[in-house]
């Protein structure tokens, strides 16, 4: 059972996680992007943790929707609309709900990732955050079908996401700023896939 408290814990955890990974995300982005991913994520989630703690919306859908709007406003880079869309679509699956279960969680992530897919128009193999997200949600559905609980579902997601993230190292970028580098982007881990895995890990540590 995931309640508003757990969702808020996730948000606060995301703030801490991105703060402690700010330098490494920015470093990854410096190699193939515009060196602002870490900064952008911190700007977005710090604002979110602060604003949502000051005034916590009444249900999970409302929290996620507010989070989406803050990210769209504050992040600045492409991850703003992408993560913003993730949480916006996710919020629609749990409008008015104050608690959700394992299946709801899978549906929530599936809807969010569908939003990212639609917004970024990227496919697996394009060296984007989608390379972490798609295998992660597939693993979540599988774990749920296999009778897994929230904890098992999220552990599966992290593990699949990590593999996807690591696979981006050898890929050449076809979407986003890194695609300007084309072949030269090979050999670098994608910062978007990296921040996506951090988000999954934070979910595993707070929602389960």
């Amino acid at each position: 059972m995931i309640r508003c408290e757990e969702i808020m814990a996730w948000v606060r955890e995301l703030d801490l996680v991105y703060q402690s990974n700010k330098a490494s995300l920015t470093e990854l982005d410096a190699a193939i992007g515009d060196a602002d991913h870490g900064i952008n994520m911190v700007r977005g989630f710090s604002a979110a943790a602060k604003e949502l703690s000051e005034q916590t919306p009444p249900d999970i859908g409302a929290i996620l929707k507010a989070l989406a709007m803050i990210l769209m406003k504050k992040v600045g880079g492409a991850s703003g609309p992408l993560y913003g869309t993730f949480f916006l679509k996710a919020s629609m699956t749990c409008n008015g709900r104050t608690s959700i279960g394992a299946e709801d969680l899978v549906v929530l992530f599936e809807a969010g990732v569908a939003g990212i897919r639609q917004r970024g128009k990227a496919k697996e193999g394009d060296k984007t955050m989608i390379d972490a997200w798609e295998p992660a949600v597939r693993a979540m559905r599988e774990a749920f079908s296999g009778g897994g609980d929230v904890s098992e579902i999220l552990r599966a997601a992290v593990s699949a996401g990590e593999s996807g993230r690591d696979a981006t190292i050898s890929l050449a970028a076809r979407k986003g700023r890194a695609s300007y580098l084309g072949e030269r982007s090979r050999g670098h881990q994608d910062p978007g896939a990296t921040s996506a895995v951090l988000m999954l890990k934070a979910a595993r540590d707070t929602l389960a």
Partner: protein
Amino acid sequence: MVGLVIVSHSHTLAEALRTLAGGVVDGSVPIACAAGTGDDHQELGTDVTEIVAAIRSVDSPEGVLVLADLGSAVLGAETAIELLGDSLVGPVRLAAAPLVEGAVSAAVQISLGADLDTVAREAGGALFSKQEHLEGEGRERDQSAGCGESGTGEWHQGRFRVTTRQGLHARPLVHLVKTAARHDVRGEIRPVRGDQPWVNVRSFNRVVTLQIRSGEEFEIRFTGAEAPEALEAVADLAARQFGEQPQRSETMDSDATRQSRSGSTSRIRGMPASAGLALAPVEVLRVPRPSFGRSDATEGIAFREAPLGSRQVWRDLAILRDSIRLLTGEIRLEAGRASREGRQEIGEIGEAHAMILEDPELLRAAGAIYSTCEMEPLEAFWRAAESVSREYQRLEDAYMRVRAIDVLDVAVRLVSFVDPRCIPDYTLPESPVILAADELLPSYTMHLDGARVQGIMTTGGSPSSHAAIIVRGLGIPMVTAVDLPPEWQNFMNGREVILDGYTGEIDLTPDEMSRRTVLARREEEERRRAERRTLAFGPASLLEGPTVRVEANIATAADAREAAVNGADGVGVLRTEFLFLGRREIPGEEAQLLALREMTAPFGSMPVTVRLLDIGGDKDVVALNLPREANPFLGVRGVRLLLHRGFEDLLRGHLRAVLRLACERDVRIMIPMVTMEEEIREVRVRLQAARDELVREEVPHRWPLDLGIMVETPAAALVAERLARAVDFFSIGTNDLTQFVMAAERGNEALAVFDNALHPAVLTAVRSAIRGAASAGIPLSVCGEIGSDPGALPVLIGLGVRSLSVSPVSVIAVKEQIRVLRESDCREYARDALSGETS
């Protein structure tokens, strides 16, 4: 009208693009920006919620076109559109167009009234014209974009020569494209040079890339239902120089002019910019370069601790922000006054200067320099202006290029405003000269004295530069773009030359013969001019009736000279604000006396009414550091300010200067914005105190002086009978009286209908003042624009007014009108006007 939204990572980029695209269509298109992130938008990135707000701000039933630069801007725009859902009144579309070309194309199409589909298509196609220009590909492609539905029947074709100096640049092109778009036709255009393809005339970007220059011909053809009408409209447009300033034929082609130069090296040529002849020694004038009292050793770039956008830099730049705001206000005030007095061109130049000065880019550039280099904010501003001016100079468009000097001009004014010590002192010699300069600052030119400056030559500039426009107004002969070798200053200074403002020729070694010819022709010109003025001098009397005094309102030394030569019978209102405007410190008594003395010199022994400092309302003075008021027109202004605590010294020095001036001129003192008798009494007390001081210090002055008031508040008009017993004269200020009686702010266009000095309510107030003055037997005059309004003048006369004060340019016309008016008719007009009849 379709709205346009620009989404960019960079706030600077978006704002600059808005200026560019908006400028092409004279700001007629609603354009909103969403750009940058962080609290002050200075960080690179996009904010989805801002995009949502931007789209909403230009939402209309015709729809909105969104243009985004790249990456997150595109994603953000898509997200914003999705968030908006169907909450908008019109459709919204994100265009796959290059940002800059797309925005300009879209703006043009929107201004033509195109629908969203057309706007989007034209924006999207904007890249083609550039590709085509640079790569020569796809010339056959895309003849369809933007074309009307009309068939391709018979072509109606015409051939026209471009006579605008700058060729078919952006502004005339907009007229051409608009003209074509008004008709149900398909149109194509091509320059007559080599084998050029036809391009769609409604595609602004494609026509721009044809680069049709001045003197070139182009062909245009139309097909469709209204083809003959469209062609006729274009012919008409071409005859009107595409809406540009007409160019006199002799100045049209500078190359031709220069080629025709005579073999003699003693004659040089330029473009004639203002008619007339001059013979005098050359005085070399340089554009003043401010110095900032900094040794060269500290030159170079050292990084400041505080980054741009930090609170520290923001605070440090406060002085610039304030000064820009105040100086812009002053420039607008001058401009407005010039326009109202019929000198539209001066008004427009002032407005242009105000816009240059308040352009946020200039301040931002100054901030960028300030935050990275070791220098004071003022110097950073100057550097920024120099850099902007250089950018203007690099522009292809000759019309815009000559505006480079305007940027320097406003920068010099601002530097002088903040710290006059930075600007080197320069005074013209007393004897007549021909000024020679690379360029003239328009604001400096405005104050040139036609008696001292016989002629002007500039190596730069053009007949369409602002300085030239001003010089024409002053009637000083001028030649621009004079063909002089580098280092010309070295051999030109002090050399006596003949300058011919008709032909653009300058004779460097005039012989006796040509000197005599010039002098004779000048004499002839002077005689003819004098003839026209003779009539103005001397009293103006009504037909078989009494004389009406016509005095002038003056605010500057130039006004005074103009008023004097136009035959003003004196100064009805000397506006003393000029003493205080344009400086950060209050001028001392001596400085005021000197300035007043110089200003009133043309009037000799004629009466001069000095109106005490009338600050407040819309007139702000930096030096006084006045607090902002919610309703300044009804606030601490005029005499209220002079008597306000803290201004004792200001009023004392001001009164002492006027008392001392009275030794040499026939001075009367007038108090502005009086509402209560106590105010008059208090000014008398202060006047007496100032006088006592002068007596003690044995400083020469005159005593007593007549003391009068401006009747410009309804209160003063209503109790005029009582006030009249406390003063020596009345002057009715109809401008303020009208706005107070009608309770409608002047200059508020929405209230223009109330700005009517002939409204029975206003006239009743005027009559009350006239009766008050009559009962106490004191003289009364009327100042304000009403005096020079040909419709209002008979009414005033009919009410019994026998003294007017009008703008210097109006003196001649007002006197002419008075001489044909009959007193009895005027009384009838006045009766009708008072009763509200509009016969």
